[in-house]
């Protein structure tokens, strides 16, 4: 029977990458000054496992490389080598190299052999400098025992098991059987120590054997058979005398004890246990399968709400039947909701997946910039949708890079200002309402208002004089092409970024806010929906159409008061809302809905906010609020300006979901808003 080991390769790659990630974060923990033996154990175990798998599955290069890493770690673990920043750096690089090697194996590409060789040399140097044994000293199992040469005549073996022999799970009979497979075996049992039957303990071994094994047999073959029972028996193995190989030529072979050191005291308390436990048991399922289920559940929700409406409208049933129906519908609603929540949770992952790359990033960047920074993570277990997580990664990297480059000052500057030399960057995540909030804060210099304003004036983004309000200044940093960095470093400062950060966050249906205090630091607060599949919506009626406004973007809704409406430049209308003027958008006009243009005085104004600006949407009526399942217009139809998607209401009607951000931009950017929205966005009822 043959087993094709290549079928386990993929699993090996995946688990190796997981090990590498764990090793990396543990290394960074060590760098942070910890000297926790459990942390070293995590790193060691990772290397050990990769080495074992690499060798087993035929990835010799991986196995050899990891062997060096493991040897070094073993030294550290046993206290022979002290941890130093240099060693941590080499180990971190080794983790990278291994990750590349495994990535290369996965894709079938070639790894960077030169770098790996250089690293391997470096590791060997560290090892040579750090201890007495060479990294290959442990290959003892391969070394042939001195008496390995075959003997023609055979061997005389005295085999006297100790009393406790059976308790190791070994069986003398197995040994005799295996020996007999090597050659002709004469067996003589020694029963002299056998006690009388009544005194006999059936769990003890009383017999001994004198064996003569004839044939052309290597000593190593015999040694191997007895290898497991060394120390559990008295054993002597002597060659049988032959004319051309006198017995005296060979000394009495002794049982090998070469590698038989006393059990080293390895106080292996289980490191990283909590982390492991947090992972729990899991199965890997393709994301498409989950999305199919989510879609089906979405349909189910729609069917359920349709049934609810039907149920409410049913007449002519007797009371008992009515009650039955109502109970059933209520239960259906409850179960549907739970099912929906449960299914959504499948796509949720703790944000630690997105946070995990930052310790390394901060470590590398801060040493490159010559700054001292401590990264604090909290709320790592906060869950959010996998897709949202994937898309928020890059913006977060940007914010952290900026905090490091622009926020945190150089150590001497900090000292001069009476701040601790080591700056702090804090990544925090928590749930708030139906949103997840991610905060990136630092205790650095804060935004430099003067410089921002000066730069903006230089670029003509601001008028040359006059007061500029706080909000506008902060808004400037999100302007495309805006950067105040004096020199463009390869870390940041090219001015591409913050605008992309904001756009990415908005694309996810979220927003980002900044607070900053000069000399005290900045805080970027990102608010994101937990999932992209469901939305809390406010249903509004415009003519005979129903639209959905995302609840999160609604600031307030109010009755229009005629006297507060002003016409600017003869065409655009604005509304005076307390002390500010906001543009008004009549959705009838915008979407070209037939019927008389609404009488403003009888209409309602829904004030929505997007991109930090407000706009008033004129609607005929506010209907209910409900959770709606978002269906993409883009994939089912085509993208439509001002509309972010569609959903199916309980009565089977399709309703379009308004994109507040786009509407606001249209209203504020172009005075003639109505003309800029191409085509009609209405749905035949």
């Amino acid at each position, binding site marked *: 029977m043959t087993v094709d080991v290549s079928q386990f390769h993929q699993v090996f790659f995946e688990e190796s990458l997981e090990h590498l990630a764990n090793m990396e974060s543990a290394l960074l923990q060590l760098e942070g000054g910890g000297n926790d033996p459990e942390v070293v154990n995590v790193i060691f*175990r990772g290397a050990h496992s990769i080495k074992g798998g690499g060798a*087993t599955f035929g990835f010799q290069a991986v196995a050899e490389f990891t062997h060096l890493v493991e040897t070094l770690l073993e030294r550290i673990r046993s206290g022979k080598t002290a941890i130093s920043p240099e060693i941590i750096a080499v180990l971190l690089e080794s983790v990278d190299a291994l990750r590349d090697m495994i990535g290369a194996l996965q894709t079938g590409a070639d790894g960077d052999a030169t770098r790996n060789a250089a690293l391997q040399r470096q590791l060997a140097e560290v090892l040579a400098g750090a201890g007495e044994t060479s990294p290959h000293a442990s290959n003892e199992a391969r070394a042939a025992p001195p008496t390995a040469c075959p003997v023609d005549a055979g061997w005389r073996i005295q085999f006297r098991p100790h009393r406790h022999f059976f308790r190791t799970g070994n069986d003398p009979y197995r040994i005799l059987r295996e020996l007999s497979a090597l050659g002709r075996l004469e067996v003589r049992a020694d029963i002299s120590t056998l006690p009388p039957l009544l005194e006999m303990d059936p769990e003890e071994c009383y017999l001994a054997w004198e064996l003569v094994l004839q044939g052309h047999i290597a000593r190593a073959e015999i040694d191997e058979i007895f290898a497991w029972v060394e120390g559990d028996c008295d054993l002597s193995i002597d060659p049988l005398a032959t004319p051309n190989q006198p017995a005296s030529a060979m000394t009495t072979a002794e049982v090998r004890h070469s590698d038989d050191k006393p059990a080293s005291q390895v106080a292996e308390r289980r490191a990283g246990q909590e982390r492991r436990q947090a992972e729990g048991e899991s199965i890997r399922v393709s994301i498409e399968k989950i999305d199919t289920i989510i879609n089906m559940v979405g349909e189910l929700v729609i069917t359920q709400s349709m049934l609810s409406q039907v149920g409410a409208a049913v007449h002519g049933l007797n009371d008992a039947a009515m009650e039955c129906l109502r109970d059933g519908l209520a239960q259906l609603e409850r179960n549907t909701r739970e099912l929906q929540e449960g299914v959504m949770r499948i796509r949720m992952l703790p944000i630690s997946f997105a946070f995990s790359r930052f310790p390394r990033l901060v470590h590398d960047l801060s040493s490159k910039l010559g700054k001292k920074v401590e990264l604090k993570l909290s709320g790592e277990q906060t869950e959010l949708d996998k897709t949202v997580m994937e898309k928020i990664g890059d913006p977060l990297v940007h914010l952290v890079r900026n905090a490091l480059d622009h926020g945190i000052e150089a150590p001497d500057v900090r000292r001069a200002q009476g701040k601790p030399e080591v700056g702090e960057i804090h990544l925090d995540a928590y749930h708030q309402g139906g949103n997840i909030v991610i905060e990136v804060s630092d205790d650095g210099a804060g935004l430099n208002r003067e410089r921002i304003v000066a730069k903006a004036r230089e670029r003509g983004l601001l008028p040359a004089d006059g007061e500029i309000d706080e909000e506008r200044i902060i808004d400037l940093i999100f302007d495309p092409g805006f950067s105040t960095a004096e020199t463009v470093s390869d870390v940041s400062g090219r001015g591409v970024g913050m605008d992309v950060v904001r756009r990415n966050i908005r694309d996810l249906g979220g927003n980002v806010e900044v607070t900053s205090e000069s000399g005290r630091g900045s805080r970027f607060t990102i608010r994101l929906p937990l999932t992209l599949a469901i939305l809390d919506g406010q249903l509004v009626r415009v003519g005979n159409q129903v639209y959905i406004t995302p609840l999160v973007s609604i600031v307030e809704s109010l009755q229009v008061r005629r006297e507060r409406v002003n016409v600017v430049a003869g065409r655009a209308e604005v509304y005076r809302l307390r002390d500010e003027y906001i543009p008004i958008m009549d959705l009838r006009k915008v979407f070209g809905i037939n019927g008389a243009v609404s009488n403003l005085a009888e209409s309602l104004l829904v004030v929505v906010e997007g991109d930090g600006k407000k706009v008033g949407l004129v609607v005929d009526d506010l209907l209910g609020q409900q959770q709606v399942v978002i269906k993409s217009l883009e994939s089912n139809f085509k993208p439509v300006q001002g509309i972010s998607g569609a959903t199916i209401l309980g009565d089977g009607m399709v309703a379009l979901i308004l994109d507040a951000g786009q509407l606001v931009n249209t209203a504020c950017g172009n005075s003639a808003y109505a003309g800029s929205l191409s085509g009609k966005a209405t749905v035949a009822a």
Partner: protein
Amino acid sequence: MATILAVDDSASMRQMVVMTLKGAGYDVVEAVDGAAALQIAKSKSFNLVLTDVNMPKMDGITLTRELRALPAYKFTPILTLTTESAAEKKQEGKAAGATGWIVKPFNPEQLISTVKRVLG
């Protein structure tokens, strides 16, 4: 047919061991670490235990010691899966009551032949 308990925290190694042994006709139960194995071992009996050494929660040496302390496992063969570089682990395993060891890396054929040696 003989029933074997296979313990390894590495999914790839465990899969290989389990599939190899099942392919050879053995009944195999798998466990992801020593603690899980001990739990399983208490509820079911096995003809052979194969355990990795380096594992989280409970390592193979401790598992061996714990199993030997159970009356049902007094004489059950227990083999540790150990790497050649960890010579002291073999002895540590022996001291804890292991029957023997299989040296990593091993291929499926070597695994089966060793298991056959023990189970006869």
